[in-house]
């Protein structure tokens, strides 16, 4: 287990220098993000970042909509992070909120009023000024986008008014406590665009024409299914307080090319035709490492890959079944089929979530316990080894679209306890439509956010209510989390909520989702921000590929 190195640079250790960095990190007492491992810091004397060069990044899918305020796709948000800035930044190590475009802020004790004091001299890439009016204009635009900005809507839930007493001050007032809003201001979903971008229709903004931000890179050219190029914003002088340097970015530009074939991405990286493969397959990791290339990874914070039972389902409505599923999965064994950079779940939340607490004792493998639960609930084993009750088989069909081969091992493990899990991999379109119908017993997926509020948002009976259940004890605990700004208190509340969720079997955690990125030897300081999207402001190119 290694840790992220220097907190300021947010850079990541290479195997060669791991011990030194690990020591430094230990000294800093920052083991929060243990489980992240990585690459590409520096080679020997070559530690001064060099300017220049275009970073060639290979994506696996085309970002269909380029507007980060609308999209939830990682491929889009990785680009959005480079072209827009946010009011605040979140330290990926500690989860703390740090100044960025806002140099300071005050939050009222009831967590209903948030006042931000903006930095001076910030300009959009079209040379217009970024002021409190820009903040107001952007947040109103997000509200106008409605369902098209579904993440933004949850962040701004209950927003009553936005006041701009002067050019550098903006005050948000909510009609109910909204403690999660501070972290939300650090996300790229609440990044800022110039007035001329906001005047366009939602569809026009998706195309990427005139998508103008304040960020260190400007969107230059969008060619769908081919490439998206960014060029350096030479006037940039307002990096996040977490950045390692000042002034414009080191790179001249970034080119994201869309390379759907995994073997082609891998071959292109190995032959130096691209610098970064954003989606390395686990079978290729060894080859890359053997060639001296680096693997960088960071688990997505938020809700891990999990099975989500519906209280309305025919078998998922039985608590004994839900709890037996938690006990029936051998998570240690799942390690054999996932990447060595990916970890089995140890809670509903991934380790990289700031309010994470290890709950692995609630997720212990206990097949006998699972069988007993099912026996006691009247699910008797049939001749084919599958249990049944009142003529109803203990069987369900799980539809999913993710690249999740570990589900096949889960299927085998659950068969041991007499549960027949049928797997059907379909297209995103089909799966989302089925989920919207809500007729399935179980759904599968994850949710990325660098704040445990995702638990409230996703499982809360008043919110998305993923379990389609009636309000209960857990909702009272979740409601409490919105009212306090004290991080220790929030963590305690979220941990209590996570325990209640597991105790009722409302989530059956499987593994963490981890993006595995391969980088060439010439790539230095390729960093992840708190939500595990890329922050390429400090990234630089130097030396041989």
């Amino acid at each position: 287990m290694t840790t992220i190195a220097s907190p300021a640079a947010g850079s990541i250790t290479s195997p060669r220098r791991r011990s030194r960095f690990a020591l430094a990190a230990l000294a800093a007492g920052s083991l929060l993000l243990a489980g992240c491992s990585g690459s590409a810091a520096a080679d020997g004397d070559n530690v001064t970042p060099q300017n220049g060069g275009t970073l060639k990044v290979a994506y696996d899918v085309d970002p269909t909509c380029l507007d980060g305020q609308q999209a939830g796709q990682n491929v889009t948000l990785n680009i959005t992070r480079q072209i827009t800035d946010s009011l605040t930044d979140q330290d990926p190590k500690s989860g703390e909120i740090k100044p960025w475009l806002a140099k300071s802020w005050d939050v009222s004790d009831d967590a209903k009023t948030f006042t931000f004091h903006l930095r001076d001299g910030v300009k959009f890439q079209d040379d217009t000024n970024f002021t409190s009016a820009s903040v107001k204009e952007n947040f109103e635009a997000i509200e106008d986008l409605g369902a098209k900005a579904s993440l933004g809507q949850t962040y701004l839930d209950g927003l009553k008014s936005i006041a701009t007493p002067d050019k550098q001050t903006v005050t948000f007032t909510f009609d109910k406590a909204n403690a999660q809003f501070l972290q939300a201001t650090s996300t790229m979903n609440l990044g800022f665009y110039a007035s001329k971008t906001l005047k366009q229709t939602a569809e026009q903004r998706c195309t990427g024409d005139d998508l103008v931000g304040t960020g260190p890179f400007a969107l230059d050219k969008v060619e769908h299914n081919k490439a998206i190029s960014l060029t350096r914003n030479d006037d940039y002088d307002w990096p996040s307080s977490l950045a390692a340097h000042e002034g414009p970015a080191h790179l001249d530009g970034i080119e994201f090319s869309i390379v759907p074939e995994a073997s082609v991405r891998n071959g292109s990286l190995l032959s130096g035709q691209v610098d970064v493969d954003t989606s390395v397959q686990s079978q290729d990791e060894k080859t890359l490492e053997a060639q001296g290339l680096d693997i960088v990874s960071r688990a997505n914070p938020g809700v891990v890959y999990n099975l989500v039972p519906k209280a309305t389902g025919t078998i998922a409505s039985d608590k004994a079944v839900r709890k037996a599923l938690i006990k029936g999965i051998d998570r240690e064994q799942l390690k054999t089929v996932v990447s060595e950079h990916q970890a089995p779940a140890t809670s509903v939340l991934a380790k990289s979530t700031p309010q994470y607490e290890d709950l692995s004792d609630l997720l212990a493998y206990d097949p006998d316990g699972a069988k007993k639960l099912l026996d006691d609930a009247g699910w008797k084993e049939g001749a084919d080894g599958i249990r049944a009750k009142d003529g109803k088989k203990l069987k369900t069909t799980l539809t999913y679209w993710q690249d999740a081969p570990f589900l096949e091992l889960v299927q085998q493990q659950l068969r041991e306890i007499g549960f027949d899990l049928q797997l059907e991999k379909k297209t995103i379109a089909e799966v989302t439509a089925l989920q919207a119908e809500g007729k399935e017993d179980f759904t599968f997926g994850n949710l990325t956010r660098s704040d445990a509020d995702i638990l409230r948002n996703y499982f809360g009976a008043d919110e998305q209510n993923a379990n389609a259940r009636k309000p209960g004890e857990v909702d009272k605990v979740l409601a409490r989390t919105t009212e306090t700004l004290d991080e220790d208190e929030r963590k305690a509340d979220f941990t209590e909520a996570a325990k209640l969720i597991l105790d009722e079997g409302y989530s059956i955690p499987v593994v963490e989702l981890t993006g595995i990125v391969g980088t060439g030897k010439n790539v230095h300081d390729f960093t992840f921000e708190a939500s595990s999207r890329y922050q390429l402001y400090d990234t630089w190119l130097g030396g041989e590929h």
Partner: protein
Amino acid sequence: MNLRYLASRLAQGLLVLWIAFSLSFFLLYWLPGDPVITMLGAGGELQSFDPAEVARLRAEFHLDQPLIVQYLFALGNLVRLDFGTSIQAGTPVTEAIAAALPSTLALAALALGLALIIGTVIAVTATLTRRPWLRDTLAALPGLGVALPTFWVGLMLLQVFSFRIPLFPAVGTGTPAAIVLPAVTLAIPLSAIIAQVLFRSLQNAWIQPFVTTYTASGYTRLRLLLRQALPVALLPTLTMGGVLFGQALAGSVVVENVFSRQGLGRLAQTAVTGQDIPLVQGIVLFAAAVFVLVNLITDLTYPLLDPRLRAARRKLESTSGNTLAEASDRADGSAGASPAGSTAVTAAAGSTATATGIEGARA
């Protein structure tokens, strides 16, 4: 050719377009899934949606109307040449197709050109050679060329000529060199079809009496083949233009994915997986329209390319000229693609096109 014939062919073409449009419309409607939910859930992570907003968006795309109303609405837009807007990318469908088209056309044209050369060389060599083993080997190549998965061929070419020996870039459409490997990959199955058909018709031509006549008058095998037999044999091959064009377009889906190229194939694939109905329909209609056009041009220009007409024009005085005309008639018919036959089956099977058809794909 008269105007009445032209009008009836145009009407046939429109009928084909209407059928293609209707079939794709109902097929897409029948597929499970909801384009609005797909669009909102583009992140892929589990989310729930405000039902009111979903309803508003469904209304915006007329998805809340009964099927028949949606169909008539879409048909009405089509008649006004309004192809709508891509649900996922927000760009007008015509713009999305126009952006993807040049790269696919360049790929298809180069692949067809290469395929024509490779296919002809294989067929001619196989016909000319007096070595049975060489003839048998060459005659077996087309079968192999069709059987090799395009996907695999592409990956192998990349592995050797890009990753091991860095001759060509693996990624993108940026440089002229980037088109070489994709074009070769796509040309392999196309050349197999050409070689197969051409070899057959050359063999047919080779046993015609005019060959004996020419041989008797002192023609060498090579000259006889190139000057006399090949033009006769090429005609049925060139009527394959429509099929080849269809193959090239279908092949581009795989080739563009393997070589990370922008193009119609990639666009079609992402549109289908994302259930981007307006975009899928736009692509289907575009492909159908080009197909109809290629076949129309084929049938209209066929008489101009018919060797019998050329033979008549040359007013050959020798008796061998008459023999040639008769022979070509028979050779032509034996390949099963006489002009009259082709006209009858064009609209439905779309199996005819000539050299002009191939140029049509290029333009």
